[in-house]
């Protein structure tokens, strides 16, 4: 054998290096298997890309190519807002007015809550739901009111789903919303810088830049962040038409959102909706840099404390007992 096939490898495996190769047959087993595998792969690839065709129904080219809010100049921002107002009219059937109020120098918002007075009625949570155009079906709100047992300030042991006459004798009630931290963990972890802290203390989200990874939701120790699992559904007559780009315009599906201290109201000098709804007057809001403001008087005369101080988030939301 070795004398005749001196070009074969000599291992006796049967390869015939010296024989002329057979004409390749298009329908031999190997090519057919390769073809079938390739077809399967291409089909799977096309199916995987299918959601993109659905996304194009919801998102326009302008929105896809939109720049980050902080990079928009005045005319670009005006064009974006006009497009959004038009889209809201088409999708929800309501004329809305989207503003973009800027923070003012010399203003830093602070919020205080009187735990001796809060009776857990949750009217603040309801007012937030209405003011911020939340999805009606999910009953979303930025505020969670926790029923806490006296003796502990541990948020994790509070119960948010009580349904009995309030206030109960042995409990106190603690509404928790975004604390607008001075050292916000949510801003640190955002991979695309879709959220940032503005000059007047409010931490905001550019909903069109957010990619919906929910990392900020994981980072927030106060569970202040909410995610839009579905496209918000709100009847046209219930929509609050007084909106702004960074706060309560109707969010698209798949983005994060949070309490913005109603910046569309507070930057115009008004009270946030939760404060106006509180029937017991447990909430105090104002400009911490104004020495005559209510919030300064609370900070100066009451024993205020913050939640989870040991985490170093430096909240702008203070709690006190009378």
């Amino acid at each position, binding site marked *: 054998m070795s004398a005749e096939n001196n070009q074969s490898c000599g291992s006796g495996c049967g390869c015939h290096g010296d024989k002329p190769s057979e004409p390749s047959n298009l329908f031999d087993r190997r090519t057919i298997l390769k073809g079938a595998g390739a077809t399967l792969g291409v089909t799977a690839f096309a199916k995987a890309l299918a959601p993109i065709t659905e996304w194009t129904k919801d998102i326009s080219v302008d929105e896809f190519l939109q720049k980050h809010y902080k990079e928009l*100049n*005045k005319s670009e921002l005006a064009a974006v807002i006009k497009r959004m107002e038009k889209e809201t009219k088409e999708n929800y059937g309501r004329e809305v007015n989207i503003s973009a109020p*800027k*923070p*003012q*120098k*010399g*203003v830093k918002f602070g919020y*205080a809550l*009187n735990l001796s007075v809060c*009776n*857990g*009625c*949750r*009217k603040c*949570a*309801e007012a937030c*739901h209405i003011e911020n155009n939340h999805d009606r079906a*999910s*009953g979303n*709100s930025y505020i*969670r*009111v926790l029923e806490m047992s006296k003796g502990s300030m541990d948020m994790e042991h509070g*119960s*948010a*789903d*009580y*349904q*009995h*006459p*309030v*206030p109960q004798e042995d409990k106190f009630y603690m509404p928790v919303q975004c604390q607008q931290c001075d050292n916000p963990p949510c801003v640190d972890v955002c991979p695309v810088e879709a959220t940032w802290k503005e000059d007047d203390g409010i931490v905001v989200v550019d909903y069109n830049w957010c990619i919906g990874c929910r990392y900020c939701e994981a980072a927030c120790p106060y569970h202040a962040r909410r995610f839009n699992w579905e496209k918000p559904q709100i009847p046209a007559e219930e929509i609050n038409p007084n909106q702004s780009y960074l706060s309560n315009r109707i969010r698209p599906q798949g983005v994060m959102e949070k309490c913005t201290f109603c910046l569309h109201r*507070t930057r*115009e*000098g*008004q*009270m946030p909706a939760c*404060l*106006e709804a*509180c*029937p*017991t*007057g*447990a909430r*105090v*809001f*104002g*400009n911490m*840099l*104004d*020495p*005559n*403001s*209510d*919030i300064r*008087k*609370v900070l100066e*005369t*009451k024993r205020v404390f913050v939640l989870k101080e040991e985490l170093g988030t430096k909240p702008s939301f203070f709690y006190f007992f*009378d």
Partner: protein
Amino acid sequence: MNKDLIRKLLVIVGVILIAAGCAGSFVYFSQPKEVVEELEVWTPGEAKHPVYINDPKGIAVVDSGKRAQDGSIIAVRCNTCHTNKEANHNTKSGDELVDFHQKMPFKHGSLSCVSCHNPENYETLHLADKTKLDFKDTMQLCAQCHGKKFRDYNNGSHGGMTGYWDLQRGSRQRNTCTDCHSPHVPAYPTVMPVFPPKVRQGSKLPDRSH
């Protein structure tokens, strides 16, 4: 490589770099300057808008329990009876009342009726030092004993408000004491909470009733 070649290379590289530098700065400086918007400045100042406090309405009357033909309340002015009756300074509860507004609920510490009501003119009130007060000044009477709460109210941390935090831009509306606290049974009532948190389909609320 001989010195000549190195020199030529250096000259070429230098020329290219200088040319690139010139072109780049030309492009950079010819672009229109972006206008950086200056932020408005807010300064603390005099309040330009008032704070409105609700007034207890009109003359004090008592619901007689009867209704007129159109359903409206028939109310009786206090002095209808109290100008021709001797005031009983010891009455401390609604159970002791005999002729009118009997069994009126009253739960306000150990006060008697005339602690607040002026026995000489039941359509006014009086402070502890017998100073006469009209009903529209009820807050002053409450503040006489509940001074700390009144101080907190003035500082904005009691009683709530609607309107503007910035009185330079808008006004504020506030409650008076009797808007939330009935003077005879001032304890704030228990209420049912609204807007319960919803649960996702299929999941159960955790049991945290301990």
